[in-house]
């Protein structure tokens, strides 16, 4: 490595700290501006227009009419309901399963890597692949799930062809996929609990149940809240797993908000209405994010 040459040194050496900071932050600002902030502005703008490419290239300003239409749209409310139900089922589900996995993984194993990989693998598998693999699990003819049911003396089920069963199969899959991430966060939280507390509890003759409720759970609450908020935000954006498993079917029984946005804007090229739906999805995510930011700010103080 050569020592920086003279002109190089002068040009940066004379720069004020503030100017240097601006130059260093500029690339990040440009990238996020072009691919995240500008699109959001454009999205909101487009949502005020009647603009469907299949009906011609002109866009006409219609104010809030797209939003009014969304509130009257049964398919929107169906997608909203499905998304809300997925949040209500899979967030607590992933927290409970994730807590269980974290408690198991926190035991004093001599060799740690198999357990760690067991938690990492579900996180690393692409969502679409998880959807495909579980679609194969739930296959009505050759799936593992029906094979177990039949072996236990039950009836074959048409998992992904009945609205209620398809919903539960999707929730099961989402919980499997997301609980390992929750477990990793909770495991890191468990490892920050001082060992002395457990030793003291043992001296006092506390039962395992008491130790869990009085020490583990209260001290784990911050990590649980973080995991819960993260999961809630991503659960509202659910797309890949139901898309890979059912394409939103049967009918629209498992269609989520993100799926309806995609059908409307990309498949039907109705950008105006699709943008309004996307804004609604955006607002929900941002509302939860603001709560999250408030929470971590509070935790910092």
């Amino acid at each position: 490595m050569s020592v920086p040459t003279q002109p190089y040194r002068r040009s940066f050496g004379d720069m004020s700290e503030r100017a240097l900071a601006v130059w260093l932050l500029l690339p990040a600002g440009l990238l996020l501006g072009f691919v995240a902030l500008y699109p959001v502005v454009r999205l909101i703008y487009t949502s005020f227009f009647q603009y469907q490419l299949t009906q011609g290239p002109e866009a006409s300003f219609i104010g809030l009419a797209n939003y009014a239409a969304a509130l009257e749209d049964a398919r929107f409310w169906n997608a909203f309901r499905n998304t809300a139900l997925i949040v209500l089922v899979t967030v607590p589900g992933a927290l409970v399963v994730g807590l269980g996995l974290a408690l198991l993984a926190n035991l004093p194993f001599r060799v740690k890597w198999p357990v760690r990989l067991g938690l990492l693998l579900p996180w690393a598998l692409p969502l679409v692949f998880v959807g495909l693999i579980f679609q194969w699990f739930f296959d009505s003819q050759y799936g593992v799930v029906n094979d177990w049911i039949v072996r236990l003396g039950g009836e074959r089920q048409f998992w992904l062809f009945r609205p209620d069963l398809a919903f539960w199969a999707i929730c099961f899959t989402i919980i499997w996929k997301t609980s390992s991430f929750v477990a990793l966060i909770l495991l890191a939280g468990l490892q920050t609990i001082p060992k002395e507390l457990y030793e003291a509890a043992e001296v006092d003759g506390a039962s395992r149940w008491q130790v869990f409720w009085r020490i583990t759970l209260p001290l784990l609450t911050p990590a649980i809240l973080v995991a819960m908020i993260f999961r809630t935000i991503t659960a509202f954006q659910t797309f890949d797993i139901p898309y890979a498993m059912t394409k939103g079917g049967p009918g629209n029984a498992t269609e989520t908000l993100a799926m309806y946005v995609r059908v409307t804007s990309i498949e039907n090229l109705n950008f105006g209405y699709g943008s309004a739906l996307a804004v609604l999805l955006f607002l929900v995510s941002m509302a939860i994010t603001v709560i999250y930011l408030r929470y971590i700010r509070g935790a910092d103080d």
Partner: protein
Amino acid sequence: MKINNPRIWLWIAAAIVVLNGFFPALWIFLTSIKGEAELTRIPITYWPDNPTLQNYVQAFREQPLARYFLNSLIVAGFSTLLCVSVASLAAYALARLHVPRRNLILSLLVGVSMFPVASLMVPLYQTFNELGLRNNYLALILPHAALSLPVATLTLVSFFAGIPRDLESAAMVDGSTRLGALWHVVVPLAAPGVFTAAILAFVNSWDEFLLASTLLPAKAMRTLPVGIQLYQGEYVFPWPLISAALVVALVPVALVIALFQERVVGGLTQGGVKG
């Protein structure tokens, strides 16, 4: 056998976690080495009767799987590179320099990382269409780099903050410029952090489906998740091909997390525990 023996409980606990994590991947692998005749037999077999690589041959012969793989590699590789370079510069400024409204910037980064991809998809589709960049790698590389940028920056800020300032000052006293000190002192010490951020960005890009299917829809441009997902509509019984293709597609992520597991866990949980 004594049921109270704690070692037995340890084995059971480990088995639960390992089986839960590995079973789906293991099952898709077992599926991929069974012939079509065996896959359509009832009751289903668990261990393959007659292991065969036929599905893999088919997967590469009937579909441009190698091309999908290359596309994924190009997009994930370049978006990771872009993301980590841009994030390193920003993180250094945020960790070390006097930046006005620093907390606002950090909050904005967290906010951007929560943007729903489905919402960004609509304007990105319009924009890249107008620029004539749809079905161009750039159309996916830029958004993927941007999507991983906030988390990469936040990860690196805490890494840079952990490097003693004295080391840097010493280098500057020795006649090095600030950028010289950055290059010779800070960069080597921050390398593990940069590497962690790179792994997370790579895995995120490798996994992403929604934007990939919208911005690179042409058959020759599809990434692995997009290409393999579409087999369902093209075959009556797609599982021999899907299972083999999935195993091929999973090799890189499996390798990355197996080799760098501690680093990945550290990178993932750092944000969560510290907030």
